[in-house]
């Protein structure tokens, strides 16, 4: 939300005086601390969500484990078949690292245009995926359309799962578990991220359309993965639209017409910045913009 003009100059009353922050020097130290704290502890990545807990009238946890200085969580490995992104990579670092790879235009746009420059230097990709109450996260639909996987680690080992599955379980993730990596497969796709903030920049997006499409030699759609964010409480794929585009020439106006026919499947969420119907009604326009951007790439 755009802040009101009054100062929130009441520093302490909503904070919890017993909160601790362990700045973890290594992954092992972070996983040990999280295991020991159990349900009283949580990861502290960029802090751009956690530090706003008082404004949302939510209590802080008793213990945080700061993960921003753990070298392996801050690195990005670009391999021939996949890109592995450490969970504590910031939006700014992610956008810079992938800016020369057109197949990741969708993720670069998500990371480079979210929030504002100072926040992009702090907010992390892991925090963006892990925040269950944040409907407007940009990287979630971008990574859904890229078919990303999430690696979760604990003192007892690690496991990988599809992002779709992670979104289902994230609010009940067992204590002691940490998102450590996001793995994104590579491919010859045209991708794009269309978001609609209320101002040109700086606000949360009212709605987001992310897409990843491959076309055959005649310009017809071979594969399509489209995802929608910020319209419903959790971002999700738009599989009916994928199916309707496959086999057809890739065309912004046609894609927008089909989107208008199918948009009724979204329920929309009401909030102070935008009503539910508005979020749904802008989807065809965002689909048109996303397809045009993908074609232009």
């Amino acid at each position, binding site marked *: *939300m*755009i*802040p*009101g*003009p*009054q*100062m*929130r*100059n009441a*520093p*302490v009353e909503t*904070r*919890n*005086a017993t*909160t*601790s*922050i362990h*700045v973890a020097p290594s992954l092992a130290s972070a996983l040990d601390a999280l295991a020991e704290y159990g349900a009283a502890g949580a990861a*502290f990545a960029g*802090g*751009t969500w956690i*530090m*706003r807990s*008082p*404004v949302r009238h939510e209590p*802080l946890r008793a213990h*945080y484990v*700061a993960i*921003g200085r753990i070298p392996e969580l801050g690195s990005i490995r670009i391999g021939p078949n996949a890109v592995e992104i450490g969970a504590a990579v910031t939006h700014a670092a992610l956008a810079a690292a992938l800016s020369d790879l057109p197949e990741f235009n969708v993720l670069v746009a998500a990371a480079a245009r979210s*929030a*504002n*420059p*100072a*926040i992009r*230097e*702090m907010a992390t990709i892991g925090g963006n995926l892990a925040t269950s109450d944040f409907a407007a996260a940009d990287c979630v639909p971008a990574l859904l359309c890229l078919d990303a996987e999430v690696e979760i680690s604990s003192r007892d080992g690690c496991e990988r799962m599809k992002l779709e599955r992670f979104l289902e379980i994230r609010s009940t993730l067992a204590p002691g578990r940490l998102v450590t990596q996001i793995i994104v497969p590579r491919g010859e796709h045209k991708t794009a991220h269309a978001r609609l903030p209320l101002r040109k*920049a*700086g606000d949360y997006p009212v709605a987001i359309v992310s897409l990843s499409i491959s076309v055959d030699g005649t310009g017809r759609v071979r594969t399509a993965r489209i995802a929608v964010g910020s319209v419903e409480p959790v971002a999700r794929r738009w599989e009916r639209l994928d199916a309707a585009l496959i086999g057809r020439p890739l065309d912004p106006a046609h894609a927008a017409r089909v989107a208008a026919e199918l948009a009724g499947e979204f329920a929309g969420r009401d909030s102070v910045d935008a009503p539910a119907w508005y979020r749904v009604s802008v989807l065809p326009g965002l689909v048109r913009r996303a397809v045009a951007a993908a074609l232009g790439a």
Partner: protein
Amino acid sequence: MALSLTVNGDHLASTADPTTPLVDILREELHLTGAKPVCREGFCGACMVLIDGTPRPSCLTPAALADGCEIRTVEGLATQGQLNRIQAALDTSDAVQCGMCFPGMVVSLTHLLATTPDAVREDIRAALTGNICRCTGYERIIDATLLALATK
């Protein structure tokens, strides 16, 4: 455990709770009231300070993560009583109105001048996405920044 902060070149200790927002330490303990907690959400930029050279909203920076860092607030940007380039240009251009947003504007623009010496209007606008001004309509601030960029 005491935190050790370097603020505008001075080494200081604080016993604040580790999650205390840096802006509250600056204002309540150190009486540096340039940075202002307006939204406490990262949207408005009125609390912006440089942490190890990068603009950061001090409302979202917990004390524990400012420990050991080099912090510069608007009070520490002039050298030997001499306003820095953007401060001088904002003054010359008569860009300041109520002044609420200015400590943060000056911090963000000081960084822009240092890192993007060939910035054009659009770059300045983009750099100020997280600095909200209720009074000026921004244009005079942008003109002043162009003036500062032209002043070597």
